[in-house]
């Protein structure tokens, strides 16, 4: 009976998660897009329903025209990115030209002043007057017509040959915060997403030989007059994008999960010859849907579309949109390297379906909630697929712990800003801090206090805040609940917001004493392994409240001749592990001279007789 009640309670809990009110009807986009492959343009129309969900009346709203980032080299995006993204250089121009703009059937006034972060020469934001003022709870209809010119793809959007990746291509209303403040910003070099959940109803018109993949479920499809017209509808998403190419090949799979609203049609569109790569993408996506669904709540949409871009369209690779993402990788999978290209990128972009797609935090303000959480979740999925400490790859028995690479990448070398900073605060080190350091912080917590508790905390955050716009305090609250009150103040906040680390080192080991110390301020408990001269090995704990551990080397189990801190490598916020151990006396003879000698002989056999 008690079990039955408990089950009922659990079922209700699941039901309440699934039916989280999305208020999606308050915002709706009815869009049409006509692709002209000769001119590389998309002719668009939009009927946008927008509701003032804030507590203040509004006399203007903001539209984001992010494709204008590619208008010239003076845009904020171009200046911040230096005209390149992930080493792909810009080679052409693009933009959005609005040909008609009406609010409630009246021509709207486009205001040229009053932009937050306004900068000359940047046309990625537009301020539109609302008259009469829109009261809280009231709604308006915005009708827009425009022509989007797609650039040769170097940063997410554009074309390469007859491949089209059409993202950030329509005028999109910025998000109005409940307090009446507009969260609007130009298209920055890092971080692009922050928008309301809405219903997107998109009709795409392409030449009839083109195959299309788009956000949402295809509900209509017709071919006539040499054109193919399809309609895609997506509920409770905050963006829409599509890809098109005449040569796309397709692999599909169906995924069903207990407690999910729908089965998911997984569809991978890929260039001819990429069949083996597509199999890896689909396999990884299916595993990820199950893994992430279990931890962070089921994937709620009926479709998931994976686009594998062709060679040369690398700028479009590895980008997330709701229910659709682009992945990366050549036609040949590399089975022993998981932490690059195929598996890693698909896992990463799929994780974004939760941390960005469902938890629509402000990516410019808090990229760590978006890219940071996604990066940890990616490594965690690869670990589930390929084994503990083998998530980076494995070759001839040598395994690579991808988390260790996150640690080294984040903490070695030039110091970066803490990951909790806004995206546009970073001039360099964005990836090292937001992606890698967040991963190292989270994995340190996970390894120190156990993964079960960690995923409970992160899962609670993800389930509670899906279809909303969480902030760091929401994340911290979930961790405080799963660990103890004050946990985030002691650990997460200093690590994420102040850049605190948790280094340990052996400060002294000699004939008298052993001294171990903790540097960097974060109270992370760890273990110390003591090696006695009789060969015995013992362990003591180094509790989080202590910054120093010392004892005489004389010991009933035998004199201490060696010491290692954190022998299980739980702490990933230690920039240098080489000072984590020490020994006294001569090092035991080891075969490494003989091993390295054969290597040197190999090298000299090339140069010598």
């Amino acid at each position, binding site marked *: 009976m008690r079990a039955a009640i408990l089950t009922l309670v659990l079922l209700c809990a699941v039901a309440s998660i699934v039916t989280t009110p999305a208020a999606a009807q308050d915002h709706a986009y009815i869009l049409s897009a006509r692709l002209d492959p000769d001119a590389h343009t998309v002719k668009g129309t939009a009927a946008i329903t927008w509701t003032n969900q804030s507590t203040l009346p509004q006399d203007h709203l903001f539209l984001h025209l992010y494709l204008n980032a590619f208008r010239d080299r003076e845009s904020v995006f171009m200046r911040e990115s230096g005209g390149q993204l992930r080493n792909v250089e810009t080679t052409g121009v693009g933009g959005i030209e609005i040909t008609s703009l009406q609010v409630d059937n009246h021509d709207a006034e486009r205001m040229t002043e009053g932009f937050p972060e306004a900068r000359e020469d940047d046309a990625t934001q537009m301020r539109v007057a609302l008259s009469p003022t829109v009261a809280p709870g009231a709604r308006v209809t915005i009708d827009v017509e425009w022509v989007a010119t797609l650039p040769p793809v170097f940063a997410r959007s554009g074309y390469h*040959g007859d*491949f089209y990746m059409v993202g950030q291509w329509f005028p999109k209303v910025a998000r109005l915060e409940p307090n009446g403040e507009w969260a609007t910003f130009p298209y920055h070099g890092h971080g692009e997403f922050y928008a309301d959940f809405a219903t997107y109803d998109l009709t795409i018109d392409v030449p009839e030989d083109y195959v299309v993949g788009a956000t949402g479920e295809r509900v209509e499809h017709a071919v006539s007059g040499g054109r193919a017209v399809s309609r895609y509808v997506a509920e409770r998403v905050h963006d829409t994008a599509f890809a098109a*190419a005449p*040569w796309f090949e397709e692999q599909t799979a169906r995924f069903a999960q207990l407690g999910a609203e729908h089965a998911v049609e997984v569809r991978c569109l890929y*260039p*001819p*010859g990429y069949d083996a790569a597509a199999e890896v993408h689909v396999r990884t996506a299916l595993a990820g849907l199950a893994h992430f669904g279990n931890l962070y709540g089921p994937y709620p949409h009926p479709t998931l579309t994976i686009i594998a871009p*062709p*060679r040369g369209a690398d700028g479009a690779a590895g980008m997330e949109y709701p229910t659709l993402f682009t992945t990366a990788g050549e*036609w040949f999978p590399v089975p022993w390297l998981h932490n690059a290209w195929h598996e890693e990128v698909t896992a990463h972009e799929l994780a974004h379906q939760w941390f960005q797609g469902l938890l629509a935090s402000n990516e410019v303000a808090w990229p760590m909630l978006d890219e940071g959480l996604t990066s940890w979740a990616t490594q965690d999925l690869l670990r589930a697929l390929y084994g503990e*400490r083998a998530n980076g790859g*494995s070759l001839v*028995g*040598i*395994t*690579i*712990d991808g988390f*260790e690479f996150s*640690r*080294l990448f984040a903490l*070695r070398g030039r110091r970066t800003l803490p990951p909790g900073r806004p995206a546009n605060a970073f001039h360099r080190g964005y990836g090292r801090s937001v992606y890698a350091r967040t991963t190292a912080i989270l994995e340190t917590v996970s390894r120190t206090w156990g993964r079960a508790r960690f995923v409970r905390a992160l899962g609670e955050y993800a389930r509670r805040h899906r279809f909303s716009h969480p902030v760091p305090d929401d994340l911290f609250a979930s961790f405080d609940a799963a660990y103890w009150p004050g946990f985030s103040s002691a650990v997460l906040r200093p690590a994420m917001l102040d850049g605190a680390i948790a280094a340990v080192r052996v400060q002294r080991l000699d004939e008298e004493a052993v001294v171990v110390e903790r540097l960097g301020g974060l109270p992370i408990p760890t273990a110390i392994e003591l090696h006695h001269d009789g060969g015995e090995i013992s362990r003591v704990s180094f509790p989080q409240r202590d910054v120093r551990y010392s004892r005489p080397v004389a010991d009933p189990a035998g004199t201490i001749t*060696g010491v*290692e801190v954190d022998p299980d*490598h739980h702490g990933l916020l230690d920039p*240098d*592990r*080489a000072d*984590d*151990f*020490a*020994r006294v006396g*001569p*090092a*035991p*003879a*080891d*075969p*490494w*001279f*003989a*091993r*390295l*000698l*054969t*290597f*040197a*002989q*190999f*090298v*000299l*056999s090339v*140069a*010598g*007789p």
Partner: protein
Amino acid sequence: MKRALPATFTLYALTTLLSATPTALATNAWASTFGHPRGAEGLVAGSAPWLDVFLTVLRGHGAGLLIFAALVTAFLVAVTPTLSLYWMRSVRDGASLAALSFAASRTLAALAVYIVHAAVVFVIAVVGACAVGLFRFGLSGPDTRLHDLVVLAVIGFFALLAFGSGALRDAWLSSVARGESTAQAVRRGTRATGRGTYFVYVGYALLGLVMLACASRVALAIDSPLGALLASQVFVFLRFVVRSRWLETTKRRVDAVS
């Protein structure tokens, strides 16, 4: 083979000595940085801390080690023409000391042979790079598989050509060891080297590489420091024996040219 054995062993011993000095420096740097076997174990365990240890050693000793290793290599490269000629001459008449003084007296000719060979390899590399760089076949559509595979085959062909050109160099040097001038040696050596000879050379060279791979493998497999050293060095010496066998076949071919 027996005639050349003292020379073969001498060259093995010399290159081993040259290899051992930077190796000893590196392992000492390793031990002095951190004298704990755990870092070495980490090398095979895969995960941390080997990367940290490696980076720490590199930071502390990297530049010095690199310069020393470069000096050793440069020294070996500089004396290789003379040493090779010495070896070749020993294959011919076995008299080690006389062979050495012969090699010393004909160093310039041997050097010329090596320079001509380097030029041949350079030309092959340039032609190969141009061929790959200009190759646009199969790139018009999104399916690049055929293009990639053909490029791979082209690279393989030129790599094999450059690698196999060692057969020519050895034949030239063998002619120099007969006492001929560089020009004569190049003529005779080239005539002595048929198309099949390239494949025989590649076969011997690959067998030598297999010996070196075995050396590394047994060194990794054996934990006893002395055992690892002895077992691996047997294989390294066998690599020299394999090359000595090849030099003998070269000598016979060169001598057969009328």
